[in-house]
């Protein structure tokens, strides 16, 4: 699952439960399982399946619901002068996650090391100058949280394939506007291309 989809997946069941109730969430999950044998989080990997189930329940109204999933996590910056991939992080828990990641010196160095190009874990730790024990733990934490995504692989001399990782974001800005911390990120082109949710949405 793409990192962006992992981030959005967390908001999925919360969005349905908060707006439509626990019973509706249960019905959607039940139908996903009946029809495709998957749960709600897994449906993100193939968003068209979730889209299909939501359309069975809500018809044309599924569009509004899906838009809510995305907008609860991110909102798009509509400034024409800016890259259209700049997004403001709306989900407070996601904003907190990003802030905590960049607040941690080691995690910040890890993220910085893969801003421009994907690297394998050992390269990341070498560039970031982090000991292996704590380094692997922190890299795994970033992967689990969806802030690092797999992009390509490298074949070692003994024929093993090792994943390369890249940051989901190309750039991050953190501002304080009217006593509110505003986190804006520039999504990496690859994270958009791999996101099955974004594939349902066309960018202009």
């Amino acid at each position, binding site marked *: 699952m793409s990192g962006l989809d992992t981030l959005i997946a967390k908001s999925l069941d919360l969005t349905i*439960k*908060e*707006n*439509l*109730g*626990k*019973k*509706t969430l249960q*019905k959607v999950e039940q*139908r996903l399982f009946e029809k495709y044998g998957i749960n709600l989080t897994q449906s993100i990997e193939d968003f*068209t399946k979730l*889209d*299909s189930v939501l*359309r*069975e*329940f*809500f*018809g*044309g*109204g*599924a*569009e*509004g*619901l*899906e*838009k*809510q999933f995305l907008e609860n996590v991110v909102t*798009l910056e*509509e400034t024409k002068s800016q890259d*259209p991939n700049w997004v403001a992080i709306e989900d407070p828990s996601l904003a907190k996650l990003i802030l905590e990641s960049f607040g941690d010196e080691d995690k910040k160095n890890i993220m910085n090391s893969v801003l421009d190009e994907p690297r394998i874990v050992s390269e990341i730790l070498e560039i970031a100058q982090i000991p292996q024990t704590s380094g692997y733990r922190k890299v795994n934490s970033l992967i689990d949280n969806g802030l690092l995504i797999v992009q390509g692989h490298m074949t070692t001399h003994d024929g093993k394939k090792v994943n390369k990782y890249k940051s989901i974001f190309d750039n991050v800005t953190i501002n304080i506007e009217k006593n509110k911390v505003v986190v804006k990120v520039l999504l990496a082109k690859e994270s958009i291309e791999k996101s099955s949710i974004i594939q*349902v*949405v*066309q*960018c*202009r």
Partner: protein
Amino acid sequence: MLHWKKNSDKPEIVPKDLQSPINPKIILLILGSVACFQIFNSMEPKDSTKFTFFDFSYLVSFGVAAVFGIFISKRYWGSKIFGKSYLSLSLGYASYFIGSLVWYIYAVIYHVENPYPYYPDVAYFAFFPFVIYHLKRNIQFFKPKLEKKQKINLIIIPIVITLLFTFVTLVPMDITSGVFNLKFLPTPDHDQSFYTTTATSIAYVILDTLILSCTLVGFKIFRNSSLGSAWGLLLVGLALYTLADLIYYYFEAFGLDVANDVQGLWVGSAIVVCYALYKHKSFL
């Protein structure tokens, strides 16, 4: 700027196990009950100082719709859309129930002849914002950006019907020789109460047609889905309500109380809305 790709311009086929078909037996039962109600009610001598079985049924039908709404709201309690919108709908029907109760108190106990416009209208008017909130909440959440056609429908329907109503109420005409030989008559001298009553009636018509157009937009959003039948029934219920109101308020403008003649439509409307709420609950 992102926009949503229309994944499917064709209607989704709702699988059989998810379909929530309208039971024709229940529809026949509702139609039959309303027809019997209306026939027997029209045979009842008109006496606004008496509280008859038909008045009781009329009152109870709206009370039951309010209770149904509460049960649905409780099912989704705490949720921003379903919980709040169904609570609002039930409050709307509860307001109407209170308005009717107060109306009967004035008519039957205090012998105020045809108390309109009067204090009960405060509660009657309260029905509309609650119902409009219910419709608006659902439409805004599930279809934040309406299509041009939907926006036009939302505005045109209330405007056209209100203008027609206002025209036929205020402009006296003779259609005894047929619609195509329509003759306009001189405007008679109406007293102040005619204009007060007519203004109140027009206000009701505007609100009635607004909820009708909102429900139509809502139905079109959900029609190709499992919620389609619930919204279809809601549309029918509110359409019956609007029709009853149009007839009632037209004659009220001329001081004629035709409540007995349209009570069946109001009762039918409330029963159909109860069925719509049941459908929603049974499926989702």
